[in-house]
């Protein structure tokens, strides 16, 4: 089925590949590390990554090499690399597979990134629920340390990089990079006000880079095969490389598919994921995790790259593509996601903390056929007053499901409210009253 070369999933797709150090080395693993450490100056590694066009795979899509370039050049104290393995965005399950099936690919990327930014300590912040992935990473770190790929004086080059696994404990917001740092410092995971950015004031106030698992996993391949090679894949110049898309929902073969950036949703669903479960037409899809606004069948030929999805009014985000068939209630779907955001709001900023509660209450009553027509106006107003008014991007994310569904499926909201009106089942209390 794949008509293109796999990069990140290549090893694990070999029958019997177990992800041990020997298997990884046999597949060419740690060659990039051998060829880079002590041989290519760190600044040139950063330059290569910048030239490759690699952008963050966690959600925001920030250019990785540029992010590294923000670290102060002359700073003498410690610097840190954090691998963001807090995969929690609903619809996303790629990092889990990368960690559990080919952990050394990530470790090699971590050492390369640490070398480039001058960090001697790297922490893998992994979501607490992924116990198996944490164990597999711990075991892989042990193997790599014994083989001299991690630790002091790596392969005699004088480069030191220590890697530690740090488990989170169940908080979506800790995937936000400054909340991740707070959590790693042993505090409540509340996002920090920026600036200053982690590049100058990160973990323990030191220069820090936070990169996603999939981002780091790309690094060995970029160093092995060159920035030009990577930059030629996908949808250049701005969306280079492959993406591991996580397809979920009403498709026949859900799962992770690594494809060059720029394939369309139609191709992803029908050529890779086997088409729709009960052969009903697609009603809606989310292109990039729960934080990305819903799109419609009219967008099926939108290219899955950063720019095209943004131009269509959504975002490529974390690569979680959720597909819904005809017959799915979009108001119900928006409520389900809204409940997620309500549960996960960290509580730091009032618009998000209070707003998510109001939004959930209004959505619940509309779905329960007890809504009022003016609720629609209130929903829109609330959304406008949350987005852009919070410390982190969570505020923008939490309004995405409602704004998206109100835009394309307003008639479904209206129909539910009409039913309430017809049955005279309208709740009397104003929006925002405590349940």
């Amino acid at each position: 089925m794949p008509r293109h070369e796999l990069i990140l999933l290549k090893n694990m797709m070999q029958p019997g590949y177990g992800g041990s150090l020997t298997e990884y080395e046999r597949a060419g693993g740690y060659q990039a590390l051998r060829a880079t450490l002590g041989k290519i100056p760190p600044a040139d590694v950063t330059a290569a990554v910048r030239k490759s066009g690699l952008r963050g795979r966690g959600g925001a899509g920030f250019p990785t090499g540029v992010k590294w370039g923000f670290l102060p050049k002359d700073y003498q104290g410690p610097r840190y690399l954090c691998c963001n393995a807090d995969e929690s965005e609903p619809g996303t399950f790629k990092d889990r597979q990368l960690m559990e099936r080919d952990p050394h690919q990530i470790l090699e990327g971590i050492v390369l990134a640490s070398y480039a930014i001058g960090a001697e300590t790297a922490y893998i912040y992994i979501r607490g629920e992924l116990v198996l992935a944490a164990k597999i990473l711990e075991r892989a770190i042990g193997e790599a340390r014994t083989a001299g790929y991690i630790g002091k004086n790596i392969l005699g080059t004088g480069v030191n990089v220590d890697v530690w696994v740090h488990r989170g404990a169940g908080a979506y917001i800790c995937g936000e990079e400054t909340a991740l740092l707070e959590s790693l410092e042993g505090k409540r995971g509340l996002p920090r006000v920026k600036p200053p950015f982690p590049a100058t004031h990160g973990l323990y106030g030191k220069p820090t880079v936070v990169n996603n698992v999939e981002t780091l996993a790309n690094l060995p391949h970029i160093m092995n095969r060159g920035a030009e090679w990577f930059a030629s894949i996908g949808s250049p110049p701005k969306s280079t490389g492959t993406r591991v898309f996580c397809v979920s929902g009403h498709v026949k073969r859900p799962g992770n598919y690594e494809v060059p950036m720029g394939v369309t949703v139609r191709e992803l669903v029908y050529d890779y994921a086997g088409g729709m479960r009960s052969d009903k037409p697609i009603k809606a899809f989310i292109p990039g995790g729960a934080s990305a606004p819903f799109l419609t069948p009219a967008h099926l030929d939108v290219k899955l790259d950063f720019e095209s999805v943004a131009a269509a009014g959504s975002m490529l985000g974390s690569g979680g593509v959720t597909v819904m068939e005809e017959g799915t209630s979009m108001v119900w779907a928006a409520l389900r996601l809204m409940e997620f955001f309500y549960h996960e709001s960290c509580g730091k900023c009032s618009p998000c903390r209070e707003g998510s509660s109001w939004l959930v209450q209004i959505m619940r009553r509309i779905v329960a056929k007890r809504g009022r027509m003016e609720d629609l106006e209130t929903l829109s107003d609330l959304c406008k007053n949350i987005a852009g008014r919070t410390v982190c991007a969570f505020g923008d994310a939490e309004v995405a499901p409602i704004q998206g569904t109100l835009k394309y499926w307003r008639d479904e909201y209206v129909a539910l409210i009409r039913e309430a009106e017809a049955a005279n089942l309208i709740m009397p209390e104003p929006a925002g009253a405590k349940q």
Partner: protein
Amino acid sequence: MSLSEKYKDDIADILSRYPVKRSALIPLLYLAQQQDGYVTERAMIEIAGILDLTPPQVYETITFYTMFNLKPVGKFHIQVCKSLMCALVGSDTVVGWIKTKLGIGPGETTADGLFTLSLVECLASCGTGPMMQINEDYYERLTEEKLDRILADLKSTGSSQLKSGPFMWPEPIRT
């Protein structure tokens, strides 16, 4: 037994990983939960002592994170994902089955103290839903028959072969 006695080496190892002691807070809370099944007030006070924190600093942190239990839970903590992606493929039905089979709803524990049911948000398993986590293990692509076998296995032997191994989905097509 205190944590410092029981997990002396583990604690030393954890502390050696961080330049600032407080970073060891979540790892130490996991040790406490491993020992008692939940984090006791005594453990919080002891951990505060180890990390030079005040007990309220430990408490304010622990209450932020959903994975720490502040009161005892059943021997098997069933956590069913209720987020949209699992809901699209039937997680509400799974909750219904559990209710019928074990007689417990969300937040409840069976009378024999074996099972506690919780509904949780996305567990990064959206392509293999509906799914649940029981203690440390994932169980995916649930059907009623599979659920029956898992519950029976847990009751009789305390573990089930149906738990997920290293994750990959879809599996490669063998040609």
